[in-house]
């Protein structure tokens, strides 16, 4: 299943094989900024500009199971793991909803939070915000563990992610480069320049904003998206392929 949400405010589920629309939900008040599935893919989460995150039961067409409306501004990103929901909102807060404990933790970051990711070790949350470094925050008490800076995030929603090795943080940027940091040392390990990528003689418009990053859950590879192109990066070989 593919869950997608867009400006049409309707989270939609497509079937991968047939390409048909399986489900569609109405109810959001604004464009959907981010979607997520839970581990079992039984709940579809959609974070929207109306400040709510709606949790839909994938198997029903009816109203959402729950609406998380604690945010006071647009919710820009949502991430789910086995027992938690993390949301980042334009009201500068990262909200972590712990279902097991029944608690909500709100962390104030000073600037709109553009991207949140729950780390696979279940200890931390990675939060990217505007005009600020990417922060790794401890979930238990909200302490700052590490900051990653060097990239540029002033105008757009730039995504980040943690690689499957749990050693690297990768993030897009508005200066045409993808930054990779070492988690512990917080130093830039690599910068992947997207401006000069050419494709066999064909003119390729330089990509200045790399806005979307997604890491593979197990392999050491990740995808970056810029303009109309998606790049797949595989770490050990440093080869890139255009798709």
């Amino acid at each position, binding site marked *: 299943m593919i869950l997608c949400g867009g400006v049409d405010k309707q989270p939609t589920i497509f079937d991968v094989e047939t390409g048909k629309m399986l489900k569609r939900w109405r109810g959001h008040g604004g464009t959907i900024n981010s979607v997520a599935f839970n581990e079992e893919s039984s709940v579809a989460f959609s974070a929207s500009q109306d400040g709510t995150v709606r949790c839909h039961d994938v*198997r029903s067409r009816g109203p959402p199971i729950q609406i998380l*409306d604690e945010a006071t501004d647009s919710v820009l990103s949502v991430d789910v793991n086995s027992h938690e929901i993390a949301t980042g909102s334009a009201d500068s807060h990262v909200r972590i909803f712990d279902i*097991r404990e029944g608690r909500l933790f709100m962390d104030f970051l000073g600037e709109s939070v553009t991207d949140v990711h729950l780390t696979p070790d279940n200890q931390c949350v990675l939060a990217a915000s505007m005009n600020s470094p990417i922060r790794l925050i401890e979930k238990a008490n909200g302490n700052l563990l590490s900051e990653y800076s060097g990239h540029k995030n002033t105008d757009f929603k730039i995504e980040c992610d943690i690689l499957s090795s749990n050693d690297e943080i990768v993030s897009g940027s508005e200066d045409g480069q993808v930054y990779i940091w070492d988690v512990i040392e917080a130093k830039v390990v690599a910068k992947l320049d997207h401006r000069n990528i050419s494709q066999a003689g064909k003119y390729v418009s330089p990509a200045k904003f790399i806005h979307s990053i997604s890491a593979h859950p197990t392999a050491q590879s990740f995808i970056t998206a810029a303009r109309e192109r998606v790049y797949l990066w595989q770490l050990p070989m440093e080869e890139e392929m255009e798709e």
Partner: protein
Amino acid sequence: MSDFAIYGTPFEVLEDEEKDAITRKPKGIQDEIVTDEKGRRRFHGAFTGGFSAGYFNSVGSKHGWVPQTFKSSRESRAEKVQISAEDLMDDEDMGEFGIASRKIRPKRDFMDAFALPGEKQLLAWERSVLPSSSSISDEGLSAKLAEIIRPVNDSIGIRLLKKMGWREGRGIGPKMNRKSLERQKLNELRAQGKTAVFDKEAVESAQEFVPNFEFSPEDISRVYFTSKEDKHGLGYVGILETSVLKQSYGEMAATLKVKQKSKGIKGQAFGVGAFEDDDEDIYTSFDLSQYDFELDSSSTSVPEVARYDSTFVQSTKKSALRKNFPLPKLPHDFKHTHKPIPVDIKKMPEEIRKLGHKMTALQRAQFLGERDVSVMEMLSSKDRERLKRGGSRWDKKPETVNTSAAASTSGVQGDPFEEEPMKSHRFKQYVQYLRRGLTYPQPIDMTQLEWEHEVEEFQNHLSPELRSLLPEVRARQQPLAKVAYADSIMEQLKGRFQKETKPTSDELHHEKMKVPKDHDRLSAVKMKMFGEKTRTRYDWHPAKDLCKRFNIPDPYPGSMLVGVLQLQKKPIIGKNEDTMELAGLGLPNTALELTRKREKDEFEKETQRIVNENVHPHQIKQEEPTEDTELDRPMFELLKAIFDESEEENEPEEENETKIEEPIKPQLVKETTNGE
């Protein structure tokens, strides 16, 4: 043209102007132009009322204000010109409706009209009164009087008329005979619009008595204006007397009844059915003989008014005279003060003395009828406390707390039966037993009646907390709010208020951390001091379904809330929203309470099984739907009936889904779907 025969009379050939006047459309109001007497246009532009002064709203004449001739040279200096108001006025002002209209009126004559031109006009009091001052002449007193008293009432016109032979009350005009006079009267009345009849009789009588006498015309009748002193409309006249209720009307109506059957002048078109007779008409048939002046008028004899009340009959026997008894004779040494004989108990028989031993002082006092209350109660509470403590009047320590109040708040029972140690002891025992939940047995030396009485007394003296321990009271006690509701409401309310005191340990669980101020937080962020200042914690209640989908046991199983208490927002009941959360509380609809409780229990059972035993959920689910559907069905029907609009969105999904989605169910109710 001779072939044509001309029929009828042709129209008059009108002048052009007249033709225009007839054929043209009526002039619109916008085309009506105001012109003055010379035909010049007045009121240029959009005229909305007002007056125009001067020469077409400008200065006095075509050439502007014409100045008076000004000459100033060495020889002739310019005279000081006095400008009068009339200089600045124009024809309009001096016309008929202007402010300085020139009309001819008689002079006010409080001046001496009879004075000769040369004479000085003296005022009344200036004339010399003394006759001696003037020479006695033929006119004498009358002349002097005439000088003093001058008639000043008549106006000059009247004086002239009088000189010409007019008298007050007569009309003005040539004299005529009676006939013409009557005719003139008639004409005048008709001109006024009133109907009048030629009075022939007057003419004939005049002819008879005074055949050749000339009558002067009738004077114009004085019009007397009556000022309006009411607030009715103009011309309003109230109900006239000539209405239905007057006798004359009745007579008239009776007379106008031509036939016996005819309705006369009353109508019968409204109000009476076809099958009914009209009511007896009491307003038009007027006959005094119809009215009774007395009841039972058939008997014409005037009954006697009895001298005495007819219900009473004079008795035959004569009662005896009341006997007067004389006053009692007092002994000469009688004193009207009472001296009680003191009781000497030693002289009393043995039995009575024994009685007193068992009684306490209070009891004895009550027995003797001397005192009703114990001494303690007669003291002020302060003194009572002091006595209890064993203090004295001279203790300076102020009493801060009323001990009885303290006693009741801390649950300690005060001792109301201090006077009687036995009773007090029993009371204390009773209280102790009550605290432990036992019943105090009846003491042996008391009769049942006495004991019951005492127990009742004890119960009346219990403090409120102890009273709640009483078995009867406990049986009656029911919590006002159901626990499920109460808890959530409590949580809510707690959340809404900021605690002043430090929270106790169990309250910390539910504490809501104060959100630090924004600048605090910002500065914390700047300093990279994340943690305490930047983090806020809340209790968040996930939806049941969410927990289910995540396969996580509900952290708040009893809770009906969804979300964070403190951050509950108003429910959004939009068109596409099928959920209706009650404002702020998230309390369930009472109709769904049962199902939810049941489902909750089932869910818990279920999760237990899933988590612990790993039993295939299908088996469990198989049982449930049958029960559920039965109860769900009427519920669903009910809700469906009420909330129609959400019907189309809630169809059962797949065949194996036995769940029926209730339309307005808040997302708390779990679905009885089969597991994945």
